[in-house]
């Protein structure tokens, strides 16, 4: 005999304001098999949970329905409370009367009626729940980190430091990411490479870290604790085990004019190259799209000069599979490129700023290279067109960010700070120069951040103009920046020598593709979605896949590093267990009625359906039926809907539960 308790939460005012909770509780008790019902201000609080526990004991409840917020929020909380009171946690179900009711409706009468309906449906459903216990699966205690920027390096070092193996995959020829391109970092103005390079080397030399550079993740199968990953090691055309990194090939390569990715196109590199002097590993790669040999079949200069015979023109992409238990995604960001506007681009673009048309209109990363001691100008501020020192530089913030009409709605977060830094670096190097910053407002929340911006304004006399720029155009060798000073309310025109655009931080172009490979959700901009914005900010909704750095949203270095360590600790929490407990929401076959048509096997994305022979007492084969490998089954239930005779059912969402939920409509 089912004895069901119904617990109606007010959630303070959140539910109580629109749903008449006492009435709902009174209606609930009238439902068949409901022996107890009560409403309370905060069901998830300790006293609230205690009410549930007491009621279970006092009223011998064997099922509990909590009418509260979304099950995504507190299903675990309430199930745990039930378990503490000796009730099987799977005998607790949530009726979502907050997100799906009180918050989305205004009319109290309608919302109350709906809340009662939702509870009735859940009560009817729970009558067909039965106690379940967690499924235990072994864990592969090895992590995959995708992306070798500062976030990926940090995460890899943390996990490796705890004694577990890490696979670090980076798609570029060297790890280091965007941080390696930066000149100085805010708000301390310490040299970016000076603090990053030791970390890169440490990751490279760590016995627990296996590094795959110039490699990408091709495929991911499996699930938390047991992923099978296929890594594509792209053909470098250089044998890593033979190369000593002497650099002779790079010096002798006759091709000199390929635009350097590292220098953001402001300098050139050979066809065989190491992206930057401190690259890790210090092994060159041949850019087959520009190499003379790959184009014409002639040259082979690099091969001739290589004393180790390390050049391999025949090298092919190599596919490597690795078993890992956790994945950390740290794929970072890209700067929004405004010159190449494709027709189906997400944003309309900023052609009026002349980026791509005027050589001296550059973006933030290009300025970093110009300001960097290792950059094309050796740190001297010279403008790209004529290598002259610009005496007047205009910095434009929010190019693409916070601009719903033309760009993205979100704030790119780091531009206020780096623009202040750029203006400062410029003033430090060009003492008689003038720096102007067009801004919407200054967002400098962070330790020492606002002080930093004040310093730029007050000590370095950077001129901040609050307003937007409508156009940049060239006139007699000057760049006329037309904008508005919204504080004085006048249009302004500045004749600049160079213009730096703080273009928006956007997701990597392949972000959505990787998300689909990994099976993790992403937002409309391509940033990966965390499972809870406040309480679970580094976890994706797919178990065992964690997020670090700017792939989740625009992040600065300290935040990225913090996220990376947090993601690493999430992986370590997983590795702290011998066996993984999984929700027992898996399919189950009724072997009596299964006739082995195996449509379930055809629709299963996880190869979880196996063949099982049923034999009689004498050992004669009676029939072959489907059987579920509960380690592989992820509980989607597609087999259940496909099976014509309903001989395979999804535990937790079985036919009876759904049937009676519908019937109670």
């Amino acid at each position, binding site marked *: 005999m089912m004895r069901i308790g119904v617990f109606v939460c007010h959630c303070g005012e959140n539910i109580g304001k629109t749903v008449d909770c006492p009435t709902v509780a009174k209606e609930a008790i009238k439902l068949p098999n409901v022996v107890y019902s009560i409403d309370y201000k905060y069901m998830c609080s300790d006293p609230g949970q205690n009410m549930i526990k007491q009621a279970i004991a006092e009223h011998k409840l064997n099922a509990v329905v909590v009418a509260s917020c*979304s*099950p*995504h929020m507190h299903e675990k909380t309430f199930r745990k409370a039930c378990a503490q009171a000796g009730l099987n946690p799977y005998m607790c179900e949530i009726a*979502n009367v*907050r*997100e*799906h*009711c009180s*918050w*989305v*409706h*205004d*009319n109290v009468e*309608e*919302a109350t*009626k*709906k809340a009662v*309906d*939702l509870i009735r*449906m859940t009560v009817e459903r729970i009558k067909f729940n039965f106690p379940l216990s967690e499924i235990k699966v072994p864990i592969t205690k090895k992590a995959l980190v995708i992306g070798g920027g500062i976030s990926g390096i940090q995460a890899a070092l943390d996990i490796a430091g705890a004694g577990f193996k890490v696979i670090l995959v980076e798609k570029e020829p060297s790890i280091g990411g965007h941080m390696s391109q930066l000149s100085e970092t805010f708000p301390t103005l310490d040299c970016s490479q000076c603090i990053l390079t030791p970390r890169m080397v440490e990751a490279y030399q760590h016995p627990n870290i296996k590094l795959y550079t110039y490699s990408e993740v091709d495929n991911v199968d499996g699930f938390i604790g047991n992923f099978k990953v296929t890594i594509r090691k792209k053909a470098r055309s250089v044998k890593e085990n033979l190369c000593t990194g002497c650099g002779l090939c790079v010096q002798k390569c006759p091709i000199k004019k390929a635009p350097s990715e590292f220098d953001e196109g402001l300098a050139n590199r050979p066809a065989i190259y190491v992206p930057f002097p401190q690259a890790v590993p210090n092994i060159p790669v041949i850019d087959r799209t520009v190499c003379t040999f790959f184009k014409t079949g002639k040259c082979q200069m690099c091969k001739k000069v290589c004393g180790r015979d390390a050049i391999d023109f025949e090298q092919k992409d190599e596919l490597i599979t690795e078993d890992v238990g956790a994945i950390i995604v740290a794929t970072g960001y890209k700067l929004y490129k405004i010159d190449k506007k494709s027709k189906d681009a997400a944003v309309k673009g900023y052609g009026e700023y002349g980026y791509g048309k005027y050589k001296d209109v550059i973006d933030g990363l290009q300025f970093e290279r110009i300001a960097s001691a290792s950059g094309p100008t050796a740190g001297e501020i010279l403008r790209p067109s004529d290598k002259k020192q610009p005496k007047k530089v205009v910095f434009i913030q929010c190019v693409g960010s916070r601009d719903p009409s033309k760009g993205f709605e979100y704030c790119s977060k780091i531009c206020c700070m780096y623009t202040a830094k750029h203006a400062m670096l410029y003033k430090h190097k060009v003492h008689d120069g003038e720096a102007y910053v067009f801004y919407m407002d200054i967002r400098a929340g962070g330790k020492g951040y606002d002080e930093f911006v004040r310093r730029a304004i007050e000590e370095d006399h950077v001129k901040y103009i609050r307003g937007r720029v409508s156009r940049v155009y060239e006139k007699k060798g000057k760049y006329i920046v037309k904008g508005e000073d919204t504080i004085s309310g006048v249009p302004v025109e500045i004749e600049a020598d160079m213009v730096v655009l703080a273009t928006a931080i956007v997701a990597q172009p392949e972000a959505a593709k990787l998300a*689909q490979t990994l*099976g993790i*959700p992403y*937002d*409309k901009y391509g940033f990966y*979605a965390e499972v809870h914005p406040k309480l679970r900010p580094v976890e994706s*909704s*797919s178990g065992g896949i964690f997020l670090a750095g700017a792939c989740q949203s625009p992040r600065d270095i300290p935040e990225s590093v913090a996220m990376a360590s947090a993601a690493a600790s999430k992986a370590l929490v997983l590795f702290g267990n011998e066996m993984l407990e999984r929700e027992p*929401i898996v399919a189950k076959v009724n072997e009596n009625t299964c006739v082995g048509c195996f449509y379930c096997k055809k*629709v299963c*994305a*996880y190869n979880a359906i196996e063949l099982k022979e049923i034999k009689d007492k004498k050992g004669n084969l009676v029939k072959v039926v489907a059987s579920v490998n509960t380690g592989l089954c*992820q*509980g*989607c*239930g*597609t087999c*259940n*809907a*496909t099976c014509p005779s309903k001989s395979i059912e*999804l535990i937790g*969402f079985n*036919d009876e539960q*759904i*049937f009676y*939920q*519908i*019937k*109670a*409509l």
Partner: protein
Amino acid sequence: MSDSSFEPKIVAFVCNWCTYTGADLAGTSRMKYQSNVRMIRLPCTGRIDPMFIIKAFESGADGVLVSGCHPGDCHYTAGNYHARRRWILFRQLLKFVGIDESRVFFSWVSASEGKKWVDVINEVTDTVRSKGPFTNYQKLNKEFTING
């Protein structure tokens, strides 16, 4: 036929990962929509059986919505693709037996599309309200209560 006081009964079968979460987002964003819909959460659109729709009509629903992850976004890789093929067939069958297929709605609503969820629900509710009660099926139901 459409009675001014008629409020349709609408059932939504939704997947846990995209649409249910998208509906949660509509809630956390305090967007408003009409209250006629009753949602049933399934792990995946792949789990949604055509029998659910028949049962919903038998239980007095005037309209049914099926909603899940966009193609490519399925939490279980391909559940929504199998579901889509199933619905292509089932819709035609419903149509052929005279069950007004325009009372059965399908949508892809992702976890970030709270606004789309609101629009879909309002549109479904308005459409079904203007169609009036699903008397054809309810006639069948009535006969059942008398006889059985």
